[in-house]
Every structure is written in C-alpha cells, then in structure tokens.
C-alpha cells in the first residue's frame, strides 16, 4: 500500500521521470502529467489521486490556472506548488487559492515526501470527516 497517491505535473520530462523514481522508491504511487490540461485529464481518470505536485511555470495553461481548475473539479485533492525564485509570488498567490504549500525547486526529497505525506493525511482527514458526516446523516435519517 502506497503512502500517497501523487500526480506530478511539470513540463520538464527528465525532472518528472527522476522525481517519480525517487518518490516511488519512497512508497508513493506517482503518475506523471506534462501540462495543465494533461493533469486535469489524469485526475479525471484517477479518482485515487490525493496530492498533486504542480509546477507554477508551464507553457500554455500555467500552474496557477491549473490549480484553479483542479480545485474546482476536485476540491479535496491537495496541491503542492513547485516553484523557482522568479515565481515565488505566484506560488504564494496559489496558497491563497487553496494550495496546500509551496516548495522551491530543486527541493530536498525528504521535505517533499514530508509535505506530500502531510497533504495526503489532510486529504484523508477531510474525506473521513465527510464520510463521518455522511454516516451521521444517514444514521440520523434512519432514527
């Protein structure tokens, strides 16, 4: 059983591949996407994705825009923004739009794993709360 179900979105293919290898080794189930629309498509296919690691600067649909779309379609999925120095402001803007956190590229793998784990836990907590609420609602209805 994987620690977390992760979608890694970055336009740099070698980066995505390297990071997938490292995260996989740390017991994470990672699927890649190389742009915004690709990420949305993958999310749609894989309902199990808990955390999205999203690059801010991408050609076409950039990270912030993609974040908006993800949050719209999958409000519970947690998003960690990956950014360089030049786009820190954008990442902070992303936080305001509901991103879980942001990390500077290149980032320490342990920190990333920690953040992903936290994000996944939060997502699960949110889900559990929702399930509990639903059970409570059903129970209340029966009684």
């Amino acid at each position, binding site marked *: 059983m994987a620690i977390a179900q992760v979608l890694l979105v970055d336009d*740099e293919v*070698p980066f995505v591949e*390297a990071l997938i290898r490292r995260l996989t080794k740390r017991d994470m189930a990672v699927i890649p996407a190389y742009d915004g629309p690709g990420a949305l498509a993958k999310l749609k296919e894989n309902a199990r994705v808990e955390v999205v690691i999203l690059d801010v600067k991408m*050609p076409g649909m950039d990270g912030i825009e993609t974040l908006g779309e993800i949050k719209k379609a999958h409000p519970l999925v947690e998003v960690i923004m990956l950014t*360089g120095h030049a*786009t820190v402001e954008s990442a902070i803007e992303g936080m305001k739009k509901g991103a879980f956190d942001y990390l500077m590229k*290149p980032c320490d793998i342990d920190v990333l794993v920690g953040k992903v784990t936290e994000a996944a836990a939060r997502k699960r907590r949110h889900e559990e709360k929702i399930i509990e609420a639903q059970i409570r609602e059903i129970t209340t209805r029966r009684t």
Partner: protein
Amino acid sequence: MQTDDRQSYYAGLRFRMIVVVVLVSLAPMALVSGIILYQFSSYSHQMVHAHLGELVLKHRQDIESFIKQRLSDISHLSKSFMFEQLQDSEFLQQRLWTLQEEYGFVFVDIGLIDEEGRQEAYAGPFELSRADYSRAEWFHKALKSPGYISDVFLGLRGHPHFIVAVRRHWRGSPWILRATIDFAAFNTLVETLSVGKTGTAFILNREGEFQTRPPKGEMKLTKEQYMSLFRKSDEALLAREQAGGREPEAQDVGGFLDDPLKESQVFTFKKGGESGGKFIIVASFLKSNEWLLIFQQEYSDAFARLKRTQITAGFISFLGALSIIFMAVVVSTRMVKRIARLRTEKEMMSQQIIETGKLASVGELAAGIAHEINNPVAIMVEEAGWIQDLLGDGIEDGKNLEEFKRALGQIETQGHRCKEITHKLLSFARKTDARVQTVQLNDVVTEVVDLLSQKSRYANVEAEVSLQPDLPPIQASLTEMQQVLMNIVHNAVDAMEKTGGKILIRTDADADQVRLSITDTGPGIPESSLGRIFDPFFTTKPVGKGTGLGLSICYGIVNKMRGRIDVESQVGKGTTFRIVLPLKEQAGKKHP
C-alpha cells in the same frame, strides 16, 4: 578610414562656416563702404567743381578789371591832354614814365596815331616813330570803337603783345592813343591762378590762339579740342540764356545752381589729353566772349584728396576684411573643435546609454534565464538524489549500476544544458562592442530568437522566422544589432505575455538595402503613444519593469548606421517594426 572621413567632414564644415561668416560680415561692410565712398566721391566732385568755378570766376574778374583799368588809364590820359600835347613824343615819354611809376612796367609803350594810321608820336623802347599802322587790323577795329583791346599779335616789333587803345576826335578827325601791355606782366597775372601741382590758367581767342603762355608738355590739348571748348561754352551759354539763367545739365558746375555765380558763366568740362591723361577744365568768357579764360588741371591732381581718402578707406577696409577673415577662421576653428568635442561626448554618452540599456535587458532576461537554469539544476539534483537512494541499496547490485550510468548521463546532459544557457546569456551580456564588422543579419535573428525561446514558450508566444537565404551581409556592430532585435522582440513577447500570440521576423534585401521586419499579434500601440515610443524614458510598462530606453536605443543605433526604423500599429491587431539598413552607404561612407 572612419577617422579620415570625420576629419574631412570637419574640414568641410570649418570651410563652410568660414565662408558663411566672411560673406555675412563682409557683404554689409562692403555695401556700407561702397555707399559712403560713392557719397563722398560725389560730394568731393561737387566741392572741387564749386571751388574751381569760384576761383576761375574770381580770376576772370581780376583779369577783366586789370584790362579795363589799363583801358581807363589810357582813356584818362587821352582826355586829360590836348591832341597837340600828346603829339609831342617827349611829353608822351613823360606820361609813360608816370604810368610806369604808378603801375610798374605794365605799359611797355604809348603811341598816338592819326586817322591815316601814322604814328604821330611814340614813347617806348622800340623804334616805331612814324610807324604806319594803316594796314594793321587792330587799327581799323580801334577806329570803330571808343575803347579797344586787341588780341595778342607780333606786330612790327616782332614780339607777342597786345594793345589797349582809345579813340578820340580832334577837329572832326579821329585819332587813337594806344598803349602796349607788357606780355610778361599779363602772363604773370593770368598764371597767378595755380592750383595743386598741375592746375594752370591761360587765355585763348576764338581762333584757338593762345593769348598767354600755353600749358606745358602733356598738359597741352589739341587745337581742335581747345576750339571745341569754345563751341561747347557757346552752346552752354546759349542754353543758359534760353533757360532763363538756369544752367544746362551737361556742363552744370556742381552746386552752382543755387549760387549767385550761376549767372556768371563758368563752364566745366572733362577732357582726355593726347597722352591719355584726363583733365578737368573750367572755362569762362572774357572780353565780350572773344577770349576764353581756361583753367586746366590734371584730374588726378584735382581729386588727389579724394584719391588719398579712397586709398585710406580702401586700406582700412582691407584691414577690416583681414581681421574679419582672421576672426572667421579663429571662431570657426574653435566652433568646429567644440562641435567635434560635443559630438565625441554625445557618442560616448549614447554608448553609455546603449550599455545601460543592455544591462537592463540582461536584468530582464535574468529572471527568465534563472528559471531556465533552475530546471536542469532541479533534474541534476533529483538524479543525484536518485543515485544516493540507490547507493543506500548497495553498490553490488548490477541493475543499480545501469541506473547509475543513466542518472549520471542525465546529470551530464543537464549540466551541458546549463552551460548552454549561461553561454547564451554571457554572449549577449558581454561588453558592448561598437566595432563595425561584417554581420550576417539572419544569424543575429536566429540567435536572438533562440535566446528568447524559453521566455516565448512560457508566454505562449510562437516565434516564426522568414529569412531570405542569400541575404547580403551588412556592415554593423554585431552586439548593437543584437540589441536592436533583442529589444524589439523582448517588447513583443512582453506585450503578448498574457494573451499569447505570434511573432514573425522577416528579412529580405535588394541591391541597395537590407530590410528587417518584426511583426507581432499583440495588443498594439495606441495612437497617443505611437509618436513617442522612440523617445528616451518613455515606457508603458509597470514601474520597475521597463527603463524606457530600449526603443530609443534601437532608434539611436539604427540612425547611427544611417538606417531607418519605423513602426506601424493597430490596437487589437498587432505591431510591426520595420528597419531598413542601407548597403551602399555602409560600403562607402560610414558614420561621419
């Protein structure tokens, strides 16, 4: 070559400035001097004519009064004594002595002549007692007039002389008392009118015979010329009488018209002598228009003062002109030196501005480049981390070895990528080299498009090039050319950062020029800004983003290359920058 061109340009500029300054300064000076000289010359002529006219008139009066006085002396003698008394030669001799005592040797002799022309009595130095004048012309003329003055003639004594005679009657018969006037004394009187070095006076009769000593040497005119003076004086007199006292135009004596002397018949002529000399001649009638008193003076002598003034004025003008030319040379040389210095300073400043603009461009580029470098660095870090991960599993695993190799290969690839990026940035950011060299414009376009590719990609801008394959190389500074293109393309990408779009860069050429156009599909430039986009420090970018120098630098660089840059833009459709660089101009004359 460029220095030579510049020097010849400055030499030409200096020459043109000298010519303009000299012309502008000398023309008014020459005009004023000319007018003053002309005025002075005509005033001087008037003065000389008036002065000579006055002198001649005065002299005429002196001569006339002298002759009249002599006639009156003889008349007085004839009236004071009886005919019988005067018939006595001794008595006559005593009278002659008395007269000579009174007037000096003006009277040479005295004779009493009867109606037959016989000299009844004679007192004088010649043997003329009983001389017969019955055939003498003067005798017949003297008989007809109560008082008579003859022309100069040789007569019986063989010396030039003239006589004054009075006619009296005794016992119904006329008799004549005549006296000879000393020719030398008369001459001396006439010649007292002497002005300057050559001004001399003499008397002519209507036959053109000199009644006094003729002028000497080159001063002498032909008889015909002297006769013509009579004719002209007659005509002038007639015209004056017809005009009711007004003087005729041709022989007007300047300034005489309003003078009381205008009635006095003084005529002025200008004559050329046989030897080529010019003379001013002032004439006046004497002895009931039978004689003409002539004053003759060389023109140059008469107007010597004018000539001296003209020479002085000319010398002063010459000195003035010399000093003007000297000042023009000095001032122009200084001005040209100053212009050259200012130009050098301006070039240095614009070079500094270009440098500054370049640094600004580098700064703007840096953000994009940092991100661009960040990507391979991130990959390298992840690959290195992956190797460490695998090392944790143990090095003896053969499968891991393959993975090591792959990861290291990837690191190397990304390292090269970093090197390429930094190389591109450095090649753009290196010190501006303004040296003119052969530049292939197509290469510059490719390089700049490549440098901005990452920025374009993230801005979702597609850069397309359409380059003429056999584009002739231009003579330009490579880095300046890069900068021109960089600034324009950078602006285009910036303008389309949010919307995305297309940039088309096109090059083509004909025999005379190379053309470069950069067209984007951005938001366009509003009409109000279009006229100012090449102004320094004009920018529409947010504060801190643009310096407002980019396009002004482009304009400066293209201008320096004797090229042309213009812009065409439609709001909502896009903007096109067109740069035209001359080929011939660059091959021939470079920047002055």
